[in-house]
């Protein structure tokens, strides 16, 4: 009897245990399904979010925030500050121990000072003449550059070797070339002249009459190579079929240059001509590399004049005057640039390839 009772009790307990176990496992299964559903929903949500406008905006914000901030600070703010500078002057003992910038009592004072210097300061009188000479010589060199580029492009003998050599001025530091050129003029040239019976050292860098021509020769010498590489790069993009059809019509090499190549590379020529206008006011013709701050007045250019006003720990009291000069140059350069661009686009050859 006792044995039967024990068996009944054990059977009841095991049934209870079985039920509890089943409930727990069901509950665990439900929980796992719920978790799975929830995470899946989250994943799907994330996936759709990636393609949503919000994700795109976030991405664009992350990508653009730094470059645009740099542009705002170092282009917009800098140029606005430059305009403000032009109407200010430096006053010692204001805004700090050493001094600060205050509004000029005569708002146009810096502009008047600069215009008056333009007419009376020998350095600026030479700078006007020299800057225009450099620009004009750049224009004169252009046809020579185009013809030499065309010959390299037409694969004359040793064309690839020429290309390598012509690339050298683009990769070698201007300061290295200036040093070698200066040593050549100071030490090498006198020795060469001895062979032609000239025993006296011409001292071209010390002579006020020759200093600017020597610098011009250096600049023209190096500019030829740089532009040839750019021209040949554009010429290489001209369609071969166009040239072949010209040849079938009996076109000579020079006719090909005049009627096909120049019209097709004209956008590049336009870029050089348009950006070259600003060069009148910014090109310092490596004068700082040659002479530091001590160039002869005869060799001055506008670019050099502006550069030495800020270079080599120049006094900040000069900043308002330099900014006014820059603003005046910009006021002249912008309309000329736009005019050159308009004229070239209106009257230049209009070809696409």
């Amino acid at each position, binding site marked *: 009897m006792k044995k039967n009772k024990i068996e009944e009790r054990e059977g009841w307990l095991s049934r209870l245990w079985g039920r509890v176990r089943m409930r727990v496992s069901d509950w665990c299964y439900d929980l796992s399904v719920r978790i799975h559903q929830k995470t899946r929903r989250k994943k799907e949500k994330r996936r759709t979010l*990636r393609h949503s406008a919000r994700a*795109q905006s976030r991405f664009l914000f*992350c*990508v653009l925030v*730094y*470059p*645009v901030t*740099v*542009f705002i600070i170092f282009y917009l*703010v*800098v*140029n606005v*500050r*430059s305009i403000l*500078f032009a109407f200010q002057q430096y006053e010692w003992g204001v805004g700090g121990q050493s001094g600060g910038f205050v509004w000029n009592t005569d708002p146009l004072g810096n502009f008047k000072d600069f215009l008056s210097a333009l007419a009376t300061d020998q350095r600026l009188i030479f700078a006007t003449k020299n800057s225009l000479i450099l620009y004009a010589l750049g224009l004169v060199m252009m046809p*020579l550059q185009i013809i*030499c580029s065309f*010959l390299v492009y037409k694969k*004359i*003998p040793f064309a690839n070797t020429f*290309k*390598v*050599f*012509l690339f050298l*001025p683009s*990769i*070698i*530091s*201007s*300061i*290295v*070339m200036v*040093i*070698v050129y*200066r*040593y050549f003029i100071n*030490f090498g040239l006198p020795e060469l002249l001895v062979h032609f019976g000239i025993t006296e050292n011409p001292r071209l860098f010390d002579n006020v009459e020759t200093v600017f021509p020597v610098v011009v020769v250096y600049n023209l010498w190096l500019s*030829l*190579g740089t532009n040839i*590489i750019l021209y040949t*790069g*554009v010429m290489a993009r001209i369609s071969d079929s166009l040239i072949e059809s010209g040849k079938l019509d009996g076109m*000579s090499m*020079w006719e090909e240059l005049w009627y096909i190549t120049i019209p097709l590379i004209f956008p590049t020529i336009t870029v*050089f001509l348009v*950006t070259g206008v600003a060069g009148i*006011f*910014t090109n310092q013709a490596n004068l700082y*590399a040659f002479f530091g701050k001590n160039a002869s007045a005869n060799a001055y250019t506008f670019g050099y004049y*502006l550069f030495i006003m800020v*270079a*080599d*720990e120049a006094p*900040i009291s000069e900043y308002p005057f*330099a*900014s006014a000069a820059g*603003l005046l*140059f910009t006021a002249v*350069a*912008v309309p000329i640039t736009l005019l050159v661009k308009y004229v070239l686009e209106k009257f230049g050859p209009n070809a696409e390839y």
Partner: protein
Amino acid sequence: MVKEKIYRQVFPMLFFVILVIYCISLLFPLIWMFFSSVRDNMSFVQSPFGWPEEWLFKNYGDAFQYLYVEVGSTGQRVYMIGMFANTIVYAVGCSVVSVLSHCVVAYAVAKYKFRLAKVLYTTAIVTMILPIVGNMPSTLEILRLLGLYDNIWGLILKSGGFTGVAFLIFYGTFKSLSWEYAEAAFIDGASHATVMFRIMIPQTRNVVLVLFLTTFIQHWNDYTTPLLIMPSYPTISFGLYQFMNNNFNAVSDSPHIMAACMIATLPIFLLFLIFKDKMMGNMSIGGLKG
């Protein structure tokens, strides 16, 4: 007939001769620089074009050991090895930041439609055409205000803009690339950044490489920016300018300065020899071939 002969044969020959003379004139200074760098000063002054009587390669070691630039108010000396370190940090840092920022902005403008895209594109064009002259004083003042003046990292930060030729080159390249790979990647769950860095930019690796190299060379050779903005961190080009204009070094004679010039030129020259086909083949102002 004679006129046509001149036209067809004499002119090409004339320009060929001009090119030969011009190339020799470019090569000659480099060869002269090398020979002068291994001579002693006395023999150089006596005969500048003479053959080295004794090959003084120790001039290169001397240049590293003795040529220096004094910086700051304390007159701290920076030797050539320090200048090399500054040049590498400056050139690599500016090139990476500049190329990357131009690349990502050009990608966003070329491949996404958003309100700012047209503004950014127009800004890049306008700033290229409009010449702004004489804004260096205000640039220096802003840099001083931000604490970035005379700070190599400040100059690297400043180089990350988006205007200039590099933007237009990247823009043209991205415009010509198909968007289909990107769409397929989006379907597979790729994010915008993944598509940009792992699918689109790798397709423009040639352009990225050429622009990186040209920017690197430009910064390596730049002496005016370090001179104006980070005078306490002289680069190798800035150092050469100082050697030439301030002869306060113990060995700042012609052969040693020529040796320093060779040292500054060699890394760039080697880089050019390695990548010359890529650099010359892709260079054009109307755009780069991808």
